[in-house]
């Protein structure tokens, strides 16, 4: 039986999110004090050495990213917390912010000190007005007590655009524009918000920081998988007995998450597939369930860890129907800036719809595969690049679901 391990959610149920004193009693803001007693470079080195990699999906080493902004000379720098959480099936950042907002603020303030920024933004999705309220109260309480020092944090609200989770689109949105991704390079750590060096990290990434600073890189490095240490919060949805969230060490396997925490498939049915990482994640068949959830193990089986969404489907589910729905999502959310994605997501959806309705022919599968491959290489941002992944992985593992629909 695998066990939960709470680092990010260490204060869940122990602190009152609306009362900063309870956070302080639980040891809060000692990590920020410790960070400030270190030199900026020592602090960044410690974070780098811990092996912490971004929890927003791309898995970049957090300390290395901070170092880019630290090294960029500028009169003004920014820290942005990515709380857009638009990936369907994901609600972990909400759980963190609803239960322990101060951990996120403290993590951001530590980053601010490390890179030399005195201004932070939290970009919270528009669907979470109730979370925005909690964050604003938490910021007011922390500022009133002077806990954040000269670091100022402001909450900005997204407005229902999935692509705004992409960091350069997010930056455009804070600047008051359409949330279209920028061409890269330059990358945000060097040229970001209003042209200034900007660190964008995920909520879960920031919530890890105080614990790492307090307990040290060596402690963190020893937890979970060596190449992607620490824990990951997974949000279980679909046909599992327990639709819930769990925080587990990253060497936990998919099967353990499914059975030990999810309680297996609901209604006594059999397992068919699990899609991990959100709507752009690959579909995983039974034969690969013993894979650990860490970033690199998932990549090795052609899947992703992504946001940690864990969407389970039982034997009765029609894969083509689900993929049709997913392809509509991408057609809807494509921002339209680049042609392979603007056109490609529409065509994929059209073809999938035909397949679902039984009006497709065998050659269509090759067309879909070809278009998908082009998109994964030619699209400007991760949205278009990942949009074909659910289709391509199901064509690989569940091809008979498609061919069974030909007549």
């Amino acid at each position: 039986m695998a066990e939960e391990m709470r680092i990010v959610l260490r204060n869940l149920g122990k602190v009152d999110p609306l009362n900063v004193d309870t956070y302080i009693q639980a040891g809060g803001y000692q990590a920020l004090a410790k960070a400030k007693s270190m030199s900026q470079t020592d602090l960044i080195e410690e974070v780098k050495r811990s092996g912490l990699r971004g929890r927003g999906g791309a898995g970049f080493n957090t300390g290395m990213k901070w170092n880019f902004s630290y090294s960029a000379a500028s009169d003004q720098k920014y820290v942005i917390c990515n709380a857009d959480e638009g990936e369907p099936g994901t609600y972990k950042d909400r759980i963190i912010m609803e239960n322990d907002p101060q951990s996120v603020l403290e993590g951001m303030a530590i980053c601010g000190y490390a890179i030399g920024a005195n201004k932070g933004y939290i970009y919270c999705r528009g669907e979470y007005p109730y979370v925005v309220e909690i964050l604003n109260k938490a910021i007011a309480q922390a500022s009133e007590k002077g806990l954040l020092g000269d670091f100022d944090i402001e909450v900005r609200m997204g407005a229902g655009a999935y692509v705004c989770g992409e960091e350069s689109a997010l930056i455009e949105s804070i600047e008051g524009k359409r949330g279209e991704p920028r061409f890269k390079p330059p990358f945000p750590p060097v040229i970001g918000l209003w042209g200034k060096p900007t660190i964008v990290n995920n909520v879960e990434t920031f919530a890890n920081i105080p614990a790492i600073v307090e307990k040290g890189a060596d402690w963190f490095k020893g937890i979970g998988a060596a190449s992607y240490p620490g824990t990951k919060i997974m949000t279980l949805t679909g046909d599992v007995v327990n639709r819930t969230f769990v925080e587990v060490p990253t060497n936990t396997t998919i099967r353990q998450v499914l059975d030990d925490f999810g309680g297996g498939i609901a209604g006594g049915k059999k397992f068919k597939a699990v899609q991990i990482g959100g709507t752009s994640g690959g579909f995983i068949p039974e034969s690969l369930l013993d894979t650990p959830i860490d970033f690199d193990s998932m990549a090795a089986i052609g899947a992703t860890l992504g946001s940690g969404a864990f969407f389970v489907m039982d034997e009765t589910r029609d894969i083509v129907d689900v993929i049709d729905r997913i392809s509509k999502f991408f057609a809807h959310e494509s921002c339209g800036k680049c042609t392979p994605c603007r056109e490609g997501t529409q065509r994929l959806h059209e073809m999938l719809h035909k397949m679902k309705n039984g009006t497709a022919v065998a050659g269509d599968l090759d067309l879909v595969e070809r278009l998908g491959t082009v998109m994964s290489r030619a699209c400007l941002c991760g949205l278009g690049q990942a949009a074909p992944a659910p289709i391509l992985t199901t064509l690989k593992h569940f091809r008979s679901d498609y061919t069974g629909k030909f007549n």
Partner: protein
Amino acid sequence: MADYREIIGTYKEVPGGIIEAYHAVQNEYSYIPEDAVDYAAQIFNIPKAKAYGVATFYSYFKVGSRGKNVIRICESAPCHIAGADKVVAALEKELGIKMGETTSDGKFTLEFAECVGQCQATPVITINSKPYEDVTAEKIAAILAEYK
């Protein structure tokens, strides 16, 4: 109802504040009046086309009128397999309108949404952003009664 001019004016000095201003207007009106977009262009000193471009990019914003209470039904995959279509059918029947439409008394508008982040209890709908979980056709009447 507060005038949109007043609302937008308070964001004039906020860098990139047009999106915040649109949120505030929509909170008051439940949509963004066309004139408010023109006014925002003036206040933030950008071309009207840009102000429209921003307002129409984001699916949370609605330029032009809609009902007082906006009901959004999540149709992302986890809600989809949990039976979002049955919830849609029940809402359409109860309100006598189709998805995308507004009731003749202007009280309700039905819209599709992608995941609203409450996937532990699918299917989910929101009314004016407030989530309702594990929604079934049977629960619809009681939920709507709160807003009638």
